């Protein structure tokens, strides 16, 4: 969000929410400058960066808005937990509600890049603290005492000398008329009552009895259901279609061609709209579509990977980051190492398939409900498409049955909105599992070439890294195809840039608009990490050094050293037994550092078994340790799938794997014991939802090397066939 000239303002809103309720809203400029009251109705035009929203009703019930998507990562708990700490309220006595799309009110709502806590925590703390201070001031005024004699606790303001109390509901009206304090004191971590505590998530009970409403659970009166037959080749056009049989299916109401933008390309399809989802699905089965697939290449996986491998062999790529002269230093190195690593394309495969409900209304407004990672982006996207102002588009949040980056791409709400407008009714578009698995955008498969030189003492003298693969940013209209990929080093621990005297990082973009690609949990780090940390292990081995010691020597950083010490201690690294393979990997992304150690052994039949994974997460300032543990566990399981179970292949321009029978997911039987530790320090907050993913795979393959002396450089691989 940009901060515009009038941003040095805060905002107080006094209005009825549910008749009697009063809303106390706080608008914080990005830089946290001085406060000033403005009128509610002008707040929409401020364009300042805003963060949170608190309302308190006369009975004292506090409602806190979670302005971010809840897709499993815990924002529904962590955002209110931050505010509640400073507001001095009990998490068990508050309401939590989703904020609808409104970036002017809440600041960016894009729930991606592991950004919710790290991007907003300082503001969220101030949101809570300011409200508390205003409630205290209101209490002091009512008692006609000094506010220094009052304090807040458990939803009450207390006058210490007399032990008189007001609950917040008795003070909110008065408090809302006060000027927000210019500066508020934020608690010290040692004074936290609920932050850093493993409080149970407030959404859990909704998710154990079927009452949590996901996008697919949204029902509206008169709502129609739509499924879309889309061209399985991503850029193909609809030549013609025959809906004779489709229209015979009871319940089918409309059959209409639909087009939607997928980056700079257009995806075409035919929508079948019916009064039940089942009827729409049956109608789609009966539909005959003839596709025009001329004018673009029909790529297969083998073509893509041979192009990437050739590029790595023959091209230097677009330089991203260099120091010294890596090429020259390589030629002078005592020992040299050169390796190529391959990673696959992947589908996000959220358990809740893509879906969205939209209602374009006669009055020129549009309301949307769905599992959406960026409600504010959706308003901006739909506005020109529907030719109505963004503020006339209401985007309501539901729970997301997984997101992983896919639900920040807006093709499916786009479909819902245009179909609703065409058929003049509320419409729920549902992607079948097959649609979800085959239509992308996918995680791009990347191939890497790493070359390095070692000194006599086994130190890295030169490091040359090249990445070949699709650049997500190159897909947009008008994007320069010559621009470097700014995520070439994503996942690489920062201190290496100090200790390695000569390095170069470059990428060679694979230009194939026929395969759409998109963020997938931990993005480029999800594949970069495998190359970086496999290669570090190869270098340590070549240098004849213990992999942990090798990293200590090259990182030489206090924060990293503490993490490595912890990893060494909890994993029993030094006490490893014969017939056990240990592997380590450490990556840094989204401002967090995660180290993981994997232990493997052989089963009686000789096949590899993962015995245990230890993870140490350093995400700096944090909210809820149990949510962090859960996110790291989940990241490890997701990485395990992409390493050993599934991949998306293409044959003649179409995705091959269509459902979970061929795109095989990890099961409960595949998952080892996972132990997660969290570092305690005074660093700034880092991300939690993604950084635990990249180190797992190299920690696993490094452990397999330790046990078997076999290097795995291509993913996915089968644990049964090592």
């Amino acid at each position, binding site marked *: 969000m940009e901060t515009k000239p009038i941003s040095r303002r805060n905002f107080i809103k006094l209005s009825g929410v549910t008749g009697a309720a009063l809303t106390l809203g706080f608008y914080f400029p990005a830089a946290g400058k001085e406060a000033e009251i403005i009128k509610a109705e002008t707040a929409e035009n401020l364009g300042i960066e805003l963060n949170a929203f608190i309302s308190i009703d006369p009975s004292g019930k506090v409602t806190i808005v979670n302005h971010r998507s809840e897709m499993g990562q815990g924002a529904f708990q962590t955002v209110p937990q931050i505010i509640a700490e400073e507001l001095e309220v009990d998490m068990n006595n508050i309401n939590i509600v989703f904020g609808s799309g409104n970036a002017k009110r809440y600041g960016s709502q894009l729930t991606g890049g592991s950004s919710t806590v790290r991007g907003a925590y300082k503001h969220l703390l101030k949101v809570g603290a300011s409200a508390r201070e205003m409630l205290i001031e209101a209490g002091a005024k009512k008692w006609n005492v000094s506010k220094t004699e009052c304090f807040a606790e458990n939803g009450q303001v207390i006058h210490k000398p007399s032990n008189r109390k007001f609950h917040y509901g008795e003070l909110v009206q008065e408090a809302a008329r006060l000027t927000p304090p210019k500066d508020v004191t934020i608690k010290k971590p040692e004074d936290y009552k609920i932050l850093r505590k493993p409080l149970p998530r407030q959404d859990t009970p909704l998710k154990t*009895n079927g009452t949590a409403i996901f996008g697919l659970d949204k029902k509206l009166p008169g709502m129609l259901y739509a499924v879309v037959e889309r061209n399985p080749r991503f850029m193909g056009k609809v030549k013609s279609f025959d809906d004779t049989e489709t229209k015979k299916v009871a319940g089918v109401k409309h059959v209409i061609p639909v087009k939607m933008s997928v980056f700079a390309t257009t995806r075409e399809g035919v929508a079948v709209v019916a009064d039940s989802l*089942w009827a729409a699905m049956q109608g789609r089965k009966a539909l005959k579509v003839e596709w025009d697939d001329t004018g673009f290449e029909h790529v297969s996986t083998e073509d893509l990977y041979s192009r990437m491998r050739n590029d790595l062999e023959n091209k230097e790529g677009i330089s991203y980051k260099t120091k010294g002269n890596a090429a020259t230093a390589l030629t002078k190195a005592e020992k040299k190492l050169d390796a190529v690593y391959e990673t696959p394309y992947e589908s996000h*495969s959220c358990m809740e398939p893509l879906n969205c409900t939209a209602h374009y209304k006669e009055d020129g407004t549009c309301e949307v409900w769905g599992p959406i990672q960026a409600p504010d982006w959706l308003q901006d996207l739909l506005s020109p498409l529907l030719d109505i102002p963004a503020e006339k588009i209401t985007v309501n949040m539901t729970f997301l*049955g997984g997101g992983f980056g896919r639900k920040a791409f807006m093709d499916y709400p786009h479909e819902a909105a245009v179909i609703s407008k065409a058929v003049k009714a509320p419409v729920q578009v549902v992607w079948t599992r097959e649609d979800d698995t085959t239509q992308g955008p996918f995680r791009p498969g990347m191939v890497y070439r790493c070359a390095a030189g070692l000194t006599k003492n086994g130190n890295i003298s030169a490091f040359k890294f090249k990445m070949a693969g699709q650049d997500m940013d190159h897909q947009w209209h008008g994007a320069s195809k010559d621009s470097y990929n700014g995520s070439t080093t994503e996942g690489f621990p920062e201190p290496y840039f100090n200790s390695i005297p000569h390095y170069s990082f470059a990428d060679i973009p694979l230009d194939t608009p026929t395969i759409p690609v998109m963020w997938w949990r931990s993005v480029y780090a999800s594949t970069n990490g495998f190359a970086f940390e496999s290669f570090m292990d190869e270098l340590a081995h070549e240098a004849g050094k213990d992999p942990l010691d090798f990293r200590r020597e090259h990182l030489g950083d206090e924060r990293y050293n503490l993490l490595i010490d912890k990893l060494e201690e909890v994993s029993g690294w030094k006490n490893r037994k014969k017939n056990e393979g240990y592997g380590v990997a450490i990556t840094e992304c989204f401002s967090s550092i995660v180290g993981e150690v994997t232990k493997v052994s052989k089963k009686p039949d000789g096949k590899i078994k993962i015995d245990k994974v230890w993870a140490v997460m350093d995400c700096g300032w944090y909210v809820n340790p149990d949510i962090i543990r859960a996110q790291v566990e989940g990241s490890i*399981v997701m990485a395990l799938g992409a390493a050993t179970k599934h991949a998306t292949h293409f044959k003649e321009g179409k995705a091959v794997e269509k459902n*979970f029978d061929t795109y095989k997911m990890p099961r409960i039987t595949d998952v080892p*014991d996972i132990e997660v530790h969290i570092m305690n320090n005074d660093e700034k907050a880092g991300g939690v939802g993604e950084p635990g993913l990249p180190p797992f795979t190299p920690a696993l393959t490094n452990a397999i090397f330790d046990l078997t002396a076999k290097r795995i450089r291509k993913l996915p691989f089968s644990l049964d066939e090592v």
Partner: protein
Amino acid sequence: MASLTLKINNQDRTIDVDPKMPLLWAIRDAVGLTGTKYGCGIAQCGACTVHLEGQPVRSCSIPVSAVAGKNITTIEGLSEGNSHPIQQAWILEQVPQCGYCQSGQIMAAAALIKRNPNPADKDIDTAMQGHICRCGTYPRIRKAIKTAAQLATQKASVK
């Protein structure tokens, strides 16, 4: 289209649907109980699991006409107020992340501890390996089933 009466959560619900419609869509769209989820449509993921005469089944792969008159239990009918030991354990162990697959996981786990009050790891493997969780809550599912077994035993001894 046909008029069918489903016995869901001890209530008779008469619906007018295509008899070939999978039970899943009948439950979700005709009856309106949305706790049961669609995940794959081919009995691979377990998100749609309900109890049919007490046994866990994949509702995405059973035509609604085949179950008329039989006892069907969905997540909404498992207990009042999240009181089933499996639900209690799921909350204690903080199992769900996104939560989408959990109705199916819970229905499978509830059927498991009913027939085997003290399941070993390999029993949990057998009962739960048909269920996919993309968030990767598997370690907590395993732990919660063991916790639920303890809770059920405690409950029985109190009675």
